């Protein structure tokens, strides 16, 4: 936010300067902009006439500054009229719908049927040229754009819960419109306002250039360009000055708009280029590891960082776990625990803002060689994706490209060969999609949520992967559909021999159902790892115990909640990250960050007091 505001200073300053010059024109020691001086016709710049004299010997500098007054005041007046009328119509139409909507918004849409310049010319025909006509015609011209924008914004804002909440509180329409809706739809309208000022200036100068706008001898940039055109061969500078003034002012206005939009809408303004267009590996160093003991997947010391306002922030710190062939590991944790990022790091699909700081992800492929995925070049990692490693995502409706048939999307995962579509149909049958032949030609929007997730799973298992990462694959689904998908995944584990699975979830009950081992994550760290049955019956970390107790199951009259909230990534406690919310914390916990220590065969915890608490 602060950076985008700083970027706004330059165009805002320039804009202020232009406005100031235009305002101050009568106060400045300028020559009369309309006094002719035939002797000084087309004179070059001189001490008295800094920018020279025009075809009637008038002072060009004076005409430029006075012209700015005309251009800006016409543009501003027209924009203000358009903004007030348009916004009013749009908000009323969007809020009251029905009849009001019909009258206001449809009217605006009809006006938008006329190309803008044409509409302006029509008005000029009716009213005759002149600055007043210009203001009216530009006002009519730009009001519909405001109306449509305000209408769309109002429609989307009034569906928001906080507007409904106002209604539920008993607020009247006037109060809702003024106190709740208007402030919240203001930012795009403000941007539209400055954008419209620029367009109005361009249109005004265009009409004046045609001789249908400002009436001579009043100075106007469009008129000056029109005049200079006749003599441009002898005096090209005369053409240059008004062109520069006009283009420069519009440029400053446009720049101001862009920066204003960034400042008002912090989401906009992309980061760097897309991650997958890079060729390099996440970390330097050799990828092939001859010394490592083969296993399916072993992660050690994985640390992921984002760049915060005050330097790098570790969002995942020192995460480690392993997955054996044919086994399922559940990565469980609440939002902000880093479980999804850990999964994406394995696939090399981290978003551009997240950087791998250190660690290793050792993967043993079919040929028995063990490679560090973090050090594998993108091209080689890509060769593993969709073949050895595959992934199913949380939201099946956004994971499919809406513009491509689902069969063709699943086929992308398969090698180009005849019979590819037959294999797709076979996969659809395997994941239990009804009417697999017909479905292969269906568009994604024709499928239900559960069916889309089946399609995603079909694509994921197309090449018999050795490791399947499932990132909250049932969270977006209904309970009865979740049960189907969990059963499907359990069935695949049996049929796809030796396929390991990492199942990312926030739901402990789902973990109990699907996983062999569980790694519990909290605030970017693994706090406990072990076999599911053991961890759930005898947790060795207070967070795991508290999470189990907080799950609303069983007969207890009252749920046991964990006080407080997960700390923000840039404000992590120095010692144990769970200590501030832990009922068992001692002063020592706040001082030293405990390591993940082994506490028995296949079990580990990150708690100083695990022995006392056991």
């Amino acid at each position, binding site marked *: 936010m602060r950076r985008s505001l700083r970027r706004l200073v330059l165009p805002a300053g320039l804009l202020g300067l232009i406005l100031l010059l235009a305002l101050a024109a009568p106060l400045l020691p300028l020559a009369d902009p309309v006094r002719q001086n035939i002797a000084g016709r087309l004179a070059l710049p001189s001490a008295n006439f800094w920018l020279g004299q025009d075809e009637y010997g008038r002072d060009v500098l004076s005409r430029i500054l006075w012209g700015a007054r005309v251009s800006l005041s016409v543009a501003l007046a027209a924009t203000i009229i358009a903004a007030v009328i348009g916004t009013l119509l749009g908000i009323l139409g969007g809020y009251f719908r029905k009849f009001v909507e019909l009258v206001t918004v449809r009217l605006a849409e009809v006006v938008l049927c006329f190309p803008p310049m044409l509409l302006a010319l029509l008005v000029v025909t009716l009213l005759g040229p002149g600055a007043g006509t210009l203001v009216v015609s530009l006002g009519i011209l730009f009001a519909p754009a405001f109306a449509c924008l305000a209408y769309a914004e109002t429609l989307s804002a009034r569906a*928001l*819960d*906080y507007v*409904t*909440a*106002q*209604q*539920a*509180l*008993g*607020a*009247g329409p006037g*109060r809702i419109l003024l*106190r*709740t809706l208007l*402030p*919240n739809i203001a930012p795009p309208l403000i941007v539209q306002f400055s954008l419209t000022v620029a367009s109005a200036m361009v249109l005004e100068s265009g009409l004046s250039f045609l001789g249908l706008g400002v009436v001579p001898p009043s100075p106007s940039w469009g008129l000056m360009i029109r005049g200079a055109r006749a003599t441009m061969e002898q005096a090209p500078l005369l053409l240059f000055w008004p062109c520069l003034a006009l283009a420069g002012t519009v440029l400053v206005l446009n720049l101001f708009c862009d920066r204003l939009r960034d400042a008002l809408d912090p989401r906009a303004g992309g980061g760097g280029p897309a991650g997958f267009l890079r060729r390099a590996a996440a970390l330097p160093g050799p990828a092939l590891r001859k010394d490592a003991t083969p296993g399916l997947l072993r992660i050690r010391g994985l640390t992921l960082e984002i760049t915060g306002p005050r330097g790098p922030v570790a969002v995942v710190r020192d995460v480690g776990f392993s997955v054996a062939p044919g086994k399922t590991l559940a990565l469980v944790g*609440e*939002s902000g625990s880093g479980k999804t990022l850990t999964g994406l790091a394995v696939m090399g699909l981290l978003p551009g803002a997240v950087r791998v700081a250190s660690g290793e992800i050792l993967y043993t492929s079919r040929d028995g060689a063990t490679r560090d995925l973090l050090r594998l070049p993108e091209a080689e990692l890509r060769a593993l994706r969709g073949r050895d490693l595959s992934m199913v995502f949380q939201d099946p409706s956004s994971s499919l490209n809406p513009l491509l048939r689902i069969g063709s999307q699943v086929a992308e995962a398969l090698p180009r060969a005849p019979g590819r579509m037959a294999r797709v149909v076979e996969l659809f049958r395997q994941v239990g999609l009804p009417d697999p032949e017909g479905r292969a030609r269906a568009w994604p929007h024709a499928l*239900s*949520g*559960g*069916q889309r997730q089946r399609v995603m799973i079909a694509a994921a298992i197309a090449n018999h992967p050795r490791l399947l990462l499932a990132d909250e694959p049932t969270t977006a689904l*209904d*309970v*009865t*559909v*979740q*049960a*189907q998908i*969990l*059963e499907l995944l359990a069935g695949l584990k049996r049929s796809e021999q030796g396929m390991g699975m990492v199942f990312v979830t*926030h*739901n*402990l*009950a*789902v*973990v*109990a*159902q699907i996983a062999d081992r569980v790694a519990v994550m909290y605030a970017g760290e693994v706090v406990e790892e072990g076999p599911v049955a053991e961890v*759930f019956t005898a947790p060795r970390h207070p967070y795991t115990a*508290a*999470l*189990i107790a*907080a*799950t*609303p*199951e*069983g007969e207890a009259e*009252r*749920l*046991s*909640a*964990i*006080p407080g*909230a*997960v700390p923000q990534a840039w404000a992590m406690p120095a010692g144990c990250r769970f200590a501030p919310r832990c009922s068992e914390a001692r002063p020592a916990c706040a001082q030293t960050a405990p390591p993940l220590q082994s506490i028995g065969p296949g079990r580990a915890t990150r708690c100083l007091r695990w022995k006392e608490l056991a």
Partner: protein
Amino acid sequence: MNALSPPGISAAPLLRGENLSRSFGGGGWFGRGRPILAVRGVDLHLARGEALGVVGESGCGKSTLGRLLLNLLPPTSGKVVFEGEALDALPAGKLRALRRRMQMVFQDPYGSLDPRRSVGAQIADGLLIHRMADATGAAARVAELLRQTGLEPAHAMRLPHEFSGGQRQRIAIARALATRPDFIVADEPVSALDVSIQAQIVNLLADLRSELGLALLFISHDLHVVRHLCDRVMVMYLGRVVEQGSAAAIFAAPAHPYTRALLEATPSMRHPVTAAPLPGEVPSVANPPSGCPFRTRCPAAESRCAEAMPPLEAHPADASRQLACWRAAELA
């Protein structure tokens, strides 16, 4: 005064919904788009201080029902009677005045607070709209509400984005409580929250209910949460009530095949799911099946189920419960 009224349930119904239906869409310039029946013929009653849970999957109409009860959406047919007054017959001004006594808590704690106004101002809104306090009185009440919902009075000056999801939900609850309502609709208030935070909010709602004698309509897709908080449960499927009764009885022995399937499909840490999952998915609301809406997925469906919608009738073995199933007697 509500704070003084004794907890527990009184006999007189505070709120009644009679044969409520609501459809969306339909009409249009070229007559395209069939109307979507989101809620179909729902009857319900809620006593003072009672907590009713409404449970169902997406598209069952539970959220629409909540909004109908508060008249945030007018019903297409049927009516809502609050303490003897039919809401749809009230003039706009009277209805707005009555809103003091019924409030709402929304699902998304991020969308339900105005991002541009301080939380104190938003909590005070109701007080000022209904002229229940002047500025100083409102400030004192805001401080009291913040304390009551587990926040600090100093938080009143801050903007919503400075709070976590759980804290925002506390703020939303404080806003709903400001005018001392008798009745609150809570529309999935914990489903956007993490488990550990969810427990905090469920406990807070339970405490407030017993402290203030609030009547609560608790909408949720999570059966476990409902079981913790509610006296009575209503199970909905595709716009209709398929089963209702006391929470304890329904959870102990679900009678409708859908309720059963829903309970069986809900994963549990203690007893793993063993039953085969229900086939298929909830049909589109725009194109519901004939007869019983559940028959397309029901393991016990017969040909008669396709013919007509079964009425909601008393459970064959327990008159305090009701269910809508042609085979209720055989399956009981």
